[in-house]
């Protein structure tokens, strides 16, 4: 018997934490490392990715009955590349400063495995509503993950958050955190921390109760 496809609500919730694209699935690592030296570029990137993901998921879902199996990847790529170009031109026109800073990482959204995997797993099989909920959930999860890394790196690296000073001026600013090595180190440690928390939680009774309630509701 075919496994039942998840509903819109489940897709949405799964995207945010249980199947978080970065902490759980390790997808789209390239922008995660490259644009998280501060909150502003990280959130711009999250916005651009969300736009592309939501649009691509909706469009693919609308024409899912027309897709030929062997041409579907071609159609996905075409759709994604088009929306990425739109996002890129839009950023260059209205948020020039950010567009300059993000540089090649906006067009690199095209090869972000997250988007193509959502098109493949969800949008090409389920209705528009579910696909949209899935895209919004995944985008939220992606934005949360980007925000967590950027928060650590910007606060430790420059004592600021969103360009506002949060640590006293005497904070020395760990230069390494805003440099490439800091990206690898903070993501590695955060992945470890997320893994540690979820293992610990899996053992506590509270978490088991919540999960039981959840499965009962289903």
């Amino acid at each position, binding site marked *: 018997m075919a496994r039942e496809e998840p509903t819109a609500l489940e897709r949405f919730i799964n995207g945010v934490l249980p199947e978080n694209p970065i902490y759980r699935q390790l997808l789209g690592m390239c922008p995660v490392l490259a644009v998280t030296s501060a909150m502003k570029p990280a959130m711009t990137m999250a916005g651009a990715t969300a736009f592309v993901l939501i649009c691509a998921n909706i469009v693919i879902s609308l024409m899912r009955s027309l897709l030929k199996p062997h041409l579907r990847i071609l159609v996905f*790529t075409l759709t994604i590349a088009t929306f990425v170009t739109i996002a890129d031109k839009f950023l260059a026109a209205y948020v020039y400063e950010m567009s300059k800073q993000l540089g090649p990482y906006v*067009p690199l959204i095209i*090869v972000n495995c997250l988007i193509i995997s959502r098109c493949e797993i969800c949008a090409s099989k389920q209705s528009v509503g579910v696909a949209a909920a899935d895209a919004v959930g995944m985008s939220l999860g992606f934005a949360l993950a980007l925000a967590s890394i950027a928060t650590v790196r910007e606060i430790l690296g420059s004592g600021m958050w969103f360009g506002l000073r949060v640590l006293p001026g005497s904070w020395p600013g760990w230069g390494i955190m805003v440099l490439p090595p800091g990206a690898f*180190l903070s993501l590695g440690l955060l*992945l*470890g921390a997320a*893994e540690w928390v979820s293992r610990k939680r899996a053992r506590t009774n509270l978490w088991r109760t919540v999960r039981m309630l959840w499965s009962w509701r289903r």
Partner: protein
Amino acid sequence: METLTSLILIFIGAALINNFVLHYFVGICPFLGVSRRVDTAFGMGCAVTFVISISALLNWTATYFVLRPGAPLPAWVWQLAGGNPETQIDLSVLSYIIYIFVIASSVQFVEMYVRKFFPSLYRSFGVYLPLITTNCAILFGSLEIMKRLQDPTKLWGLHEALTLAVGGGIGFTIAISLMAGIREELDMADVPAPLKGAGIALIVAGIMAMGFMGFTGVEKGVASAIGALLP
């Protein structure tokens, strides 16, 4: 002479100083995924170098003649169609779509060609070829070349574009092979459970990135060394 120096500097810049993986963070997925053993990692590196060079060649051609602002081919077509020759035609909006298609189709052709004519080569790295289409390093190479073809006063030639691509590919090979070497040893180490897998790999990559930061500034010395060697 001056060209040679600039080519060597572009090469060192792409391979070591601004290493594609450890400085620009492109190609992270294979860097973490295919770096468990040195021989597979090296095969992946060779495949990437190969494809990145071919797609750089094709994409440089497409950008130089068709896609860049002020490119000759669309201007010629426009005039042939009776358009005003003063109009600047800019097709760069199509760049990203063209690039990704050039990359996807060149990967397909390379795979078919290598399988047919070089079966031994295919056995060593052919299996990685289909994975490469979604490797950001390839698209990134083409985007870097595109960036150098925007200003008509300082256009990059094909030799410069290819040097960047080959340098980037070799830099990727160096990084992924080193990583695989370290991870083979890490298998024996007692890593804290939550960090096993991607976590520790990223931390190792961070330390490698620190090491590669030591290359910054190296090109000044290289340039003067070349100047001293070749009068």
